[in-house]
């Protein structure tokens, strides 16, 4: 009996970390209708940032959030200015290839600058917490809390602030928003930068859990895509639920079927959702085509 509890709890915890890393992607997709294929590399860069911060200053990697989150915001704004903004005006495929190119470019830059070595920080908590035979890793629990807080705050910002209103207006009807005096390109810029900043936050939670290396993004980007689609593209609470789903399905199926098939099962889940609920679990109808570039 312990086994299934352990699997579900571990799955939920790791799932929350997956969700945190996907929220930025879903935000960008929800507003800009851009699938950022370089999302994994954004994560990789942010993780290197956290690692360097903690190694150079000898500080706990969680404190790196002070520096890495704003830095990733600026990095996102820069990428938007140079790559995304220009590509948005062109046919939709241009953005796809632009972000893919960016992904390969960033990977190779990291390989040259950092080599293929694995980078790690020492563990934060010496031991995992044990409750009635169930083991919980402190770092994961912290990630879980950060994810919940982040979801709640983000929801509040979108529902109750002027910026949030402007973002929602842009999503609902970009043309009308422009007529109402909303600077849509600026909303795009801010959203893209905020999405990158969220990746920075995710990196702070992930560095104590995972090694950093140039292709680390590849291990996570597919999971992030599945979560975003599962949750309903552009839905933040959907991403949270999608993360939980992927985490639990992965850990339970890998245990009861075979570890080599862990990924197979969440892609199966992904396919089923795509067939029966093409807008995701939480998505509104036609979400994927709203405001898309013709």
């Amino acid at each position, binding site marked *: 009996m312990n086994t299934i509890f352990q699997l579900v709890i571990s799955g939920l915890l790791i799932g929350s970390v997956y969700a945190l890393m996907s929220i930025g992607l879903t935000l960008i997709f929800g507003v800009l209708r851009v699938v950022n294929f370089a999302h994994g590399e954004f994560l990789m860069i942010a993780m290197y940032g956290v690692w360097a911060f903690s190694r150079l200053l000898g500080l706990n990697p969680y404190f790196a959030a002070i520096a890495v989150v704003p830095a990733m915001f600026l990095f996102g704004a820069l990428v938007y200015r140079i790559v995304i903004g220009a590509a948005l005006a062109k046919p939709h495929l241009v953005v796809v290839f632009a972000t893919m190119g960016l992904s390969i470019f960033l990977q190779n830059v990291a390989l040259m600058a950092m*080599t293929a070595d694995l980078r790690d920080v020492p*563990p934060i908590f010496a031991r995992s917490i044990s409750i009635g035979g169930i083991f919980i890793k402190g770092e994961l629990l912290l990630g879980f809390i950060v994810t919940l807080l982040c979801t709640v705050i983000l929801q509040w910002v979108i529902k109750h602030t002027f910026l949030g209103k402007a973002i929602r207006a842009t999503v609902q009807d970009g043309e009308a928003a422009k007529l109402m005096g909303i600077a849509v390109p600026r909303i795009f810029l801010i959203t893209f930068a905020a999405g990158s900043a969220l990746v920075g936050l995710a990196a702070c939670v992930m560095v104590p859990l995972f090694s950093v290396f140039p292709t680390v993004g590849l291990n996570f980007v597919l999971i992030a895509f599945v979560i975003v689609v599962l949750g309903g593209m552009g839905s933040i609470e959907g991403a949270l639920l999608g993360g939980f789903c992927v985490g639990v399905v992965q*850990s339970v199926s890998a245990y009861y079927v075979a*570890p080599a098939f*862990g990924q197979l099962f969440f892609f199966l889940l992904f396919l089923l959702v795509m067939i029966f609920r093409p807008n995701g679990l939480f998505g509104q109808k036609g979400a994927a085509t709203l405001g898309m570039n013709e």
Partner: protein
Amino acid sequence: MRGIERIGIILASLLLAAASLPAKAQENIRIGVLLPLTGPLAKNGLENWEAMQIARDMINERGGINGRKVEYLQGDANTPNAAISETERLITKDGIKITTGSFASPIAIAVSQAAERHGVFHWETTGAAEVITRRGFKHTFQVGAPARKYGQAAVDFILNDLAKRLNKPVDALKIALLWENRAFGKSVGDGIRAYTQSKGIKLAYDEGYDQTATDMTPIVQKLKDVAPDIVIAISFPNDAILFQRKAKELDFNVAAFIGVSAGYSSPDLRDSIGDSVVGICVADFPPKVNAAVLTPETKKVAEEFYKRYEAKLKRPPAGHAAAGFSAVWALFTEVLPKAKTFEPDELREIALKLDLPEGSLVNGSGIKFTNFDWPDDPKDAGQNLRASIGVWQWTKAGNEEVFPPELATQPPIMVPLPDWSKR
């Protein structure tokens, strides 16, 4: 005008001829070194390159080979495709007749293929795949041990050593086998399964996993439920780290843990998981061996090599670097001094005649190559039957060879491995 030109040409050719005469007498022996110097394998490739450079410097300081200095020409073999083009460049543009390298099996397969196509002599240092010497090639010699022996060393260690230390009869031991499911992990895993079956042992757990897995919970939980005494794992660095962290998190304890080369032998492992690494055993090329097994002459060479390597890189060599040095040193001292023409066919004859007992090479190996005369199918040629392989263990200070006893620098420590709460 014409006359002056002609005189100029004659003078120039005379000068050239004069310049080439003394040069011919002590022309360097040029060897192509193919290693991954950039890209994901670069770290190990560069360590190998350092070890090989030390060998070259040592032989040249001793006056070279019959008075001729050794000169290396580098090729950056960072992928199998690059390995082929770099090997061909060295052969066709620089006229190289001898190649060596190449650290990883996929690179070794590519380099030896290009070399064989041009009839060039290839002296493989560490590439381990069985196929390297099973393609009917005539000029490829693999000095290091083949892949299956890694796994066999792990199993022999359990049967001949650990079982006694754990006070359990072999058939009462629960052994788990965990392998990453790509080419390397699967082939080593297959080898271990076949070998344990031939010894009449049934594995308590035998499963593959995807090395890009981000969550090791299901694997560790399953192992916890099986409760094996010993785990044999074939992993890459990233998944090895994730596994060890998860084992600590879920308090999964075993009496002994044996990794097979790759991830568990990577010097980075200690940087990542700290002292949790102490006590883990690794079936691999020996990084160093008990000096008592070495011939007196080799012992001196070994001392010099380790001293120079540690001075240069500030840490002792990993098994593959020691193997790289051992192999090229044997080439410099056992093969090339006997050569007159340096043609590949002559070098092949010399290599096949080698009959060096164990302990002749710095890492404890001897040399005796197969020549289509081994009962395997397809037939092996150029495989070294006396390549040393064993088990070493991570210690607080570095690493120590623990098996087989004749190569061991100390007996294994921390058997049984203490629980995580005491590590």
